[in-house]
């Protein structure tokens, strides 16, 4: 049952399933949102959005109370003077950055983050990054990427951020493994432990906890994606000679197991060793899932598109918790990176890509799911209409990857249903 061949790309599951493509109104955050978790991950990085008051307001609304400390992100708000050409936008940016750097000398890595307005007025942030990088020299690395809503949805901002890091990773052709995608520190530590027990010792994480700990990359690098939304980062890594290890994502017991095993196979680790290292934690995690299974089995779940985590989540809920899948919506379907996931999805699952939110709400009404996974703008209105919801942003803020977190992940879905059952008002 744990044979790797069982889960690779035979046209099983939903590999060749049709997908409803929608191009109407999207109810999804833009890529700027990624800053909220990225700045917590890279602890000496600062994210400076070059944008409008809307961008600043989005960030503070998404970050919630985090904003009340002195956060490591901010917005350089473009004003009328910049637009009218009264002030040179580049000079203005330099001035803002210089002040910022004076105030926050502990910052080692500065991201200039593009937004819709900066893209539309064609403010060249990559050139600005070069210029500022020269100005501050070795003390501060300056990079740029776009988190704009005209180019990126929600989690794609992380993809753009990590892709901007790849060209500056140190080079090394030594055999090594890289785990790509933000994971919580506790998850990183667990992953490191299992890899080293398996016998893979040279493991880097992108993004790292600190700017000075960037992993090396080169011809000997194999990388595993920890998140399903990293299309451009993967391309950049491949450009530097690294090779992606195809695997499902480390969500749930099955996904985590297959993820580790895919790496083990690449590194020539024996089946026996895999069994010795992975079976016990997998079994423990399966047992931990049992409690949630009681709540979730047989219930129908509907996904609105949000984080691109929808398909792996749906796979986990269907296969390990016995849920029935109604529509599974995703903002963007990367067939290659999700090939292993699609193969595991129950045949006949209704997939949609993109969004036309009003029509999707109509479908949701018709489907009458027991649980709706959606963004925060939709959750309360759906609850008020009698649906039980799980807001998806929690799925990117909470440590959910790996064996030890499988039950926590299930719990995120089970709690709203349990709560609904408890309330007698």
């Amino acid at each position, binding site marked *: 049952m744990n044979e790797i061949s069982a889960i690779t790309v035979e046209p099983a599951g939903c590999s060749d399933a049709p997908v409803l493509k929608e191009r109407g109104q999207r109810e999804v955050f833009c890529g700027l949102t990624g800053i909220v978790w990225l700045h917590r991950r890279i602890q000496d990085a600062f994210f400076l959005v070059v944008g409008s008051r*809307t961008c*600043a307001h989005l960030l*503070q609304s998404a970050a919630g109370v985090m904003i009340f400390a002195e956060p490591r992100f901010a917005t*350089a708000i473009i004003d009328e003077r910049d637009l009218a050409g009264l002030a040179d936008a580049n000079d203005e940016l330099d001035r803002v950055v210089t002040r910022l750097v004076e105030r926050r000398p502990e910052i080692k890595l500065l991201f200039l983050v593009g937004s819709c307005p900066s893209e539309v007025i064609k403010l060249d942030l990559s050139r600005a990054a070069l210029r500022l990088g020269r100005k501050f020299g070795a003390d501060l690395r300056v990079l740029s990427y776009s988190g704009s809503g005209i180019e990126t949805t929600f989690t794609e901002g992380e993809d753009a951020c990590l892709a901007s890091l790849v060209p500056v990773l140190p080079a090394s052709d030594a055999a090594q493994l890289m785990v790509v995608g933000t994971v919580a520190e506790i998850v990183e530590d667990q992953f490191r432990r299992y890899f080293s027990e398996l016998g893979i010792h040279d493991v880097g994480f992108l993004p790292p906890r600190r700017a000075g700990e960037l992993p090396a990359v080169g011809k000997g690098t194999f990388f595993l994606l920890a998140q399903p939304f990293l299309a451009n980062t993967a391309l950049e890594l491949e450009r530097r000679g690294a090779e992606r290890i195809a695997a499902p994502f480390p969500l749930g017991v099955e996904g985590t197991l297959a993820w580790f095993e895919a790496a083990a196979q690449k590194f020539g680790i024996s089946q026996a060793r895999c069994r010795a290292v992975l079976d016990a934690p997998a079994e423990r995690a399966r047992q931990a899932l049992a409690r949630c299974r009681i709540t979730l089995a047989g219930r129908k779940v509907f996904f609105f598109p949000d984080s691109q985590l929808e398909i792996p989540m749906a796979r986990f809920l269907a296969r390990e918790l016995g849920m029935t899948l109604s529509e599974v919506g995703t903002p963007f379907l990367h067939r290659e990176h999700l090939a292993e996931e699609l193969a595991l999805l129950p045949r006949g699952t209704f997939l949609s890509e993109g969004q036309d939110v009003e029509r999707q709400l109509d479908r949701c009404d018709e489907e009458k799911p027991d649980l709706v996974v959606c963004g*925060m703008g939709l959750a309360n209105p759906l609850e008020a209409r009698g649906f039980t919801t799980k807001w998806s942003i929690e799925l990117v803020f909470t440590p959910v990857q790996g064996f030890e977190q499988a039950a926590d992940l299930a719990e995120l879905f089970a709690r709203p249903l349990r709560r609904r059952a408890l309330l007698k008002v």
Partner: protein
Amino acid sequence: MQLSLWTYEGPPHIGAMRVATAMKGVHYVLHAPQGDTYADLLFTMIERRDERPPVTYTTFQARDLGGDTATLFKKAVADAYERFKPQAMLVGASCTAELIQDDPGGLALALDLPIPVVPLELPAYQRKENYGASETFYRLVRACVGPRVERAAGAKPSCNILGPTALGFRHRDDVAEVTRLVEKLGVRVNVVAPLGATPADLARLPDADFNIVLYAETALAAALWLEKTFGQKFVNVAPIGVGATRDFVKTVAELAGIDATDFLRAETSRLVWYSRSIDSTYLTGKTVFVFGDATHAVALARVAAEELGYKVVGLGTYAREFAREVRAAAKGYGIEALICDDYLDVEAAIKAAAPALVLGTQMERHIAKRLGIPCAVISAPVHVQDFPARYSPFMGFEGANVLFDTLTHPLMMGLEEHLLGMFREDFEFSGDAAASHLGHAAAVVLEAEPVTAVWDEAAEKELKKIPFFVRGKARRNTEMFAAEQKIGVISLKTLYDAKAHFAS
């Protein structure tokens, strides 16, 4: 370019959304990229609204830019009309769409919809949320008003209540309280808008004898236009606190041609007695720093000074549009107003003023927490806590009751303070403990700035005897004094010299 870590106000289209969402039968089509849909959560999460705001976003993408974003916009308007069948439609652009200049107004009008379509020009790179709300409400009123119907002979005088919006600070309860107040006085409320009104209700606005501007931030522009067009006078006194409520009642009575003498004799707030009760003596001269929108900042400063006997040591607003009013009020307290929308500067000003109480927004609450100063929230921008389940108006006589609690509870109750002082030497009592409502931060943050002078043993001991809630300030003041006087070692004498110095 302005560096912003946090903003008091959102962009102007958020103000427009606050008006659209407050009303019924209005739909807003906003030309905006997908990320701007975050605004929905302000209403569904913070205010816990059970419906999505009536807003359609075009969510154009980069690939649409070269092509035809204008067609996309037209289609969004047509679809929204078909689906929602509103009585009136607002159309406009967010910051990004403003740059691509598709002319949403012209495009929507070209569709020739059988309803009023109101184009909004809200300059996103100049103006902010409150301006957006004010301008939107004004435009909607202009577009929807009908002809004036004269009051029938013998009918009660009537008024409109203007200004309450979605996502407003206590607007829900203020409207209920003010409605109750004016009706009891004998005035009929013709229309409340925008909150709860339909475009058809706006058509009836001219029928009222006069208008009540509840929040100048959102309603003043509309009221001025109604006055110019229909000769409707308006009341522009926010009835926050006992004094302001009395002023409000008098002005309303005057416009309605009613004698309010008996009403004012009968109606009052518990604040009046509570503030006179001897337990409140300890409140005398407590220093307070007030910051918020102009309506609330000015009103709360008055309540603090005239109705609770506090000393206003700071007064400010983030709303530049109302700088003049706030400056004038500050002058009355002998201070310079702080007109500023950078919270770091507000923090610095609070730190410098070292007040005993901060009245502010959610941001000042966090600043005060960091500084270990008691605080109450009195103004937008709102937070989920500003929508309490219980009835909790700020306006009218009931509002004054709420204010008494809100403004005194964060300070320690008089008796508690007294007892703490009396027992501070008691072995069971730890003077280092902070008051229960200050959490853990207090004791730590009140620590003095880097010490220049050292304290001798006797002075240090004496300092310990000073109640902890003023100890931090005593230490700071003494050290400041020592620094000024170039005193290296602080003795008992320095301590008391400093005390005398700062008392005078």
